[in-house]
């Protein structure tokens, strides 16, 4: 058997699982099971949210290692489900390595993305509904939805430009703050704080912090620390952005 190909296959699978937003234990388990299915008992895998290392010892004593850094990514549940199903299939009935690599390639390539219109309406829905959820009025919800639209328009652009996590959070917060302040000054929005809290919900790192606590309790301390700092950075970025926007609005319009 070609152990280089096996290593590349399991490494790619783990890397794509991480990219789709799977939990650490799922990534490590999947890679370990896949190696086991091909009869490698000497495989080791270590994953944290932005890096994965797979290593195995081939029968003739050669040590092979594969390292991939995983860039920032969003969550794609359907990709994760497909990869999980593929992993189950490969483990239940391991095909030839080339064939398996082809199957993996087919799952990963050409994933349909939601259209711009659908995505924007999702942003509008989420932010406006969260304004209502936090106790805002219908007018607040409309303002929150408009703030969400600006975030939905800006974020894909920023990702394409390769902006990092902190900068994206800051620009998102800034656009929310500016839109909310302008709409409130125009008399459309009623409660600025509620609009803002709803508007930032598409970006707020609540999930990250909850996942961080879960990883911590499950014993994955490294990945928990990575996520905690990610959550704090995002929160700080949003707060900085909205803070700048509100400060500007205060100097321009006075007492908001």
């Amino acid at each position, binding site marked *: 058997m070609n152990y280089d190909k096996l290593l590349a296959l399991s490494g790619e699978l783990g890397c794509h699982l991480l990219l789709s937003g799977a939990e650490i234990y799922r990534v490590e388990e999947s890679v370990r099971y896949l190696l086991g299915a091909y009869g490698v008992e000497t495989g080791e895998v270590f994953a944290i949210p932005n890096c994965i290392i797979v290593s195995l010892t081939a029968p003739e004593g050669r040590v092979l290692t594969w390292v991939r850094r995983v860039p920032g990514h969003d969550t794609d*549940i*359907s990709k994760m489900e497909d990869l999980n199903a593929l992993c189950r299939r490969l483990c239940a009935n391991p095909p030839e390595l080339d064939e398996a690599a082809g199957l993996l390639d087919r799952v990963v390539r050409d994933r349909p993305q939601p259209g711009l219109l*659908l995505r924007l309406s999702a942003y509008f829905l989420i932010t406006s509904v969260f304004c209502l959820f936090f106790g805002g009025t219908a007018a607040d919800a409309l303002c929150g939805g408009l703030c969400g639209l600006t975030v939905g328009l800006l974020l894909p652009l920023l990702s394409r430009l390769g902006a990092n996590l902190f900068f994206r959070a800051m620009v998102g917060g800034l656009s929310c703050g500016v839109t909310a302040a302008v709409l409130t000054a125009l008399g459309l929005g009623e409660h600025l704080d509620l609009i803002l809290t709803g508007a930032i919900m*598409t970006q707020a790192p609540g999930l990250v*912090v*909850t996942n961080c606590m879960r990883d911590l309790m499950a014993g994955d301390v490294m990945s928990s620390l990575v996520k905690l700092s990610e959550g704090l950075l995002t929160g700080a970025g949003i707060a900085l952005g909205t803070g700048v926007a509100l400060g500007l609005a205060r100097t321009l319009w006075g007492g908001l």
Partner: protein
Amino acid sequence: MALFLPCLYAFLACLGFCVLFRIRGLGAVLCSLGGALAWLVYLVSGPLSGGSVFLQSFYAAVFLSAWSEAMARLRKCPATGYQLIAFIPLVPGAGIYSMMEAALRGDAQDFLSTGLHTLGVAGALAVGVLVVSSLVRMFSHRRRPG
């Protein structure tokens, strides 16, 4: 009505996140329903737990994990997807924002109290998830990954 409207909002918000996280069809509806029901549990358990937000979050998390594990068995796919999105109304996203905002204002007292509150809620949710998923792992013999 006081119970129904927030749950409806939670449902709609989850539906929106399903688009962003790319869950389609029946899965999206089931997952959003889980989010709405979990929020109902959160609200209803308020009087039972003496108004402790941590206990309420814990109950909601236990319910939600049980729901997502059941749905995952039913539809033969990982529970993560359901949990991730249905948790969004419960997770303290706004808390982290107000915590960092307090830090930027230089209000150390407010920073600490909102920060501890946020971490406490996140911890309560995580304990709820872990309790259920550990029980499920213990009682279902795992044949295959996933």
